[in-house]
């Protein structure tokens, strides 16, 4: 990293650079801290990082949709464990969501209509977080059904919640970057 980059950090790193200056240590330590901050922001701003996240999200949605399309009855049973929807809606979701995830996955992999795709990924991930969260709060043994059905349990619900939360964070970050682009 050149001295010019260190003395002229990206705007998003300004608050962190203040933290570095407030260290009140030696000049060398402060400079090293600032270099780390700028390198971190360089990585996050790198166009390949957005592509990587986009491909990862696309792969996840494509795989999730494909596993659910195979057995919609098992997915409907998984949805019913959430105890959120009346029977009239469960099968409609079980039939409609998997193809939507496949379309979304392909769209993200290809990078076509990227902003809309990332918005859909974000909205879906938020719905997953809320659905699993309400199940955990009610102490329901949930089968997330995210990648095919499994045995419902509270422990697996926590695991699914963490996974959906990470998905939401990654989607939100990618959407914010795609929006700037």
């Amino acid at each position, binding site marked *: 990293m050149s001295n010019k980059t260190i003395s002229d950090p990206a705007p998003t790193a300004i608050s962190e650079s203040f933290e570095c200056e407030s260290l009140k240590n030696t000049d060398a330590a402060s400079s090293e801290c600032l270099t780390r901050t700028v390198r971190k922001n360089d990585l996050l701003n790198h166009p390949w990082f957005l592509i990587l996240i986009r491909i990862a999200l696309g792969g996840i949605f494509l795989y999730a949709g494909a596993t659910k*399309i195979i057995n919609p009855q098992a997915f409907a049973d998984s*949805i*019913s464990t959430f105890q959120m929807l009346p029977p009239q809606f469960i099968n409609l979701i*079980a039939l409609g969501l998997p193809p939507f995830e496949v*379309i*979304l996955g392909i769209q993200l992999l290809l990078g076509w209509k990227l902003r*809309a795709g990332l918005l859909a990924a974000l909205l879906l991930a938020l719905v997953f977080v809320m659905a699993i969260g309400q199940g955990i709060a009610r102490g329901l043994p949930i089968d997330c059904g995210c990648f095919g059905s499994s045995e419902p349990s509270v422990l697996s619900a926590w695991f699914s919640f963490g996974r959906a939360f990470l998905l939401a964070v990654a989607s939100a970050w990618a959407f914010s970057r795609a929006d700037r682009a």
Partner: protein
Amino acid sequence: MLTSLRSDLIYLWLCATTALCMGMVLNQFRDTPLPWIYQSKAERLQDSVNRISANIPAPATTLPATLPATLPEKLSLQEFSAFVDGNQGLILDARPEIFHRLGHVPGALSLARDDFEKSYTGIKSQLESNREQPLVIYCASASCEDAELVKKSLAALGFTNTSIFVGGWSEWTKANKPEESAQ
């Protein structure tokens, strides 16, 4: 910004509608299409039981003269092991058929909850030879409900001497008990 967000949402709405239509069309080509309104596992099983019971003779006509010992409602691992070793009756595997094929308790027959009607028809002769014979049902683990649902369905079909091995396949394999798999 708002205009582009609106156009994104309209596009997503179109995608969602297309996906739903695709799902509905695909559903029509399945062997057993999903009905429009969801039926719980218990309701689907009850439907299967109703269809089966319409085609079988009344239970009273097949009762044997001497009744075997009545099983308790639930069996522990030790009790179940003794039942298996002593060959005291039929063992029924309520897990999906694919799991039965991969591995099951020696001598167990597949009576899958998720495909009850087909499984029942497959082992009908063995089951209906004696409606009072001891039947022990198991599923994946202590937390699965398949064994309980199959037990209720069998009771509705006139099988009264039934019991559940509570620990299921998970406890059986953890105890390093013998396994059998399909050829």
